[in-house]
């Protein structure tokens, strides 16, 4: 892959991931700590969102971010992975777990989306949103660490 295209894709992948991270964090906070109207301040503002309005955006961002990552996977496999395997195998393990987390997160999306679109109840929404938030945070942090170890 052309280096300019690769770096551009990596940048868009990163920006998309940050947007997704913000969206899922707002939604998770809102679903666990629903604000009470008279409150004010930063913590109140952070969770004062309509979490149901985030569901479709989160599904879209998740899929877009994942597709961008998927397009970069061959470059990682050829240019990064061999070095990691010999110098820092735990980095390879971290990346493998990141990919597994993303795949399980992708699998979770139908139920997550349906949970927010139907009368699933607070418990189901909390559980699915929390799980997805953990997966997204995990993938983001693992990606940052691996990229710091050996970038594309």
């Amino acid at each position: 892959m052309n280096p300019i295209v690769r770096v551009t894709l990596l940048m868009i992948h990163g920006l998309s991931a940050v947007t997704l991270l913000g969206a899922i964090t707002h939604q998770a906070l809102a679903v666990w700590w629903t604000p009470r109207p008279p409150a004010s301040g930063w913590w109140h503002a952070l969770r004062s969102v309509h979490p149901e309005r985030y569901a479709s955006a989160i599904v879209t961002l998740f899929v877009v971010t994942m597709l961008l990552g998927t397009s970069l996977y061959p470059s990682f496999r050829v240019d990064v992975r061999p070095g990691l395997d010999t110098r820092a195998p735990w980095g390879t393990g971290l990346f493998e777990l990141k990919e597994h987390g993303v795949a399980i997160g992708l699998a979770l999306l139908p139920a997550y989306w349906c949970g927010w679109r139907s009368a699933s109840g607070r418990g189901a929404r909390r559980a699915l949103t929390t799980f997805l938030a953990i997966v997204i945070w995990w993938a983001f942090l693992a990606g940052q660490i691996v990229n710091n170890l050996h970038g594309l």
Partner: protein
Amino acid sequence: MTHPGAYCGASIGAAAAYTLAVLAGLPSFYYFPRLDAWGLQPLADEPTVRWYGYLLVGLIGGALGMLAGRAWPRPRWPLVWIAAAVCMVLLFAHEWSWFTR
């Protein structure tokens, strides 16, 4: 929304199929990025991407799960996140050897 059980079934089926694919090394097709080619057998000394194959198996599992889930009278929400959590634990155990080298 009609058939919410189908969505739960799709999630459970996809997560289970993906995990089984990884644990059992199921996909029988590979991508060779240096050659920009696909194959049904791994090639010696050639970097191989197997993840696409795992995802395809997960997709098939999701489709089957969706069909099975349509028959459920009620969506099984707890089963979704419990299945996903179990899959993550199994996948973590599968990759553990990377952290002990």
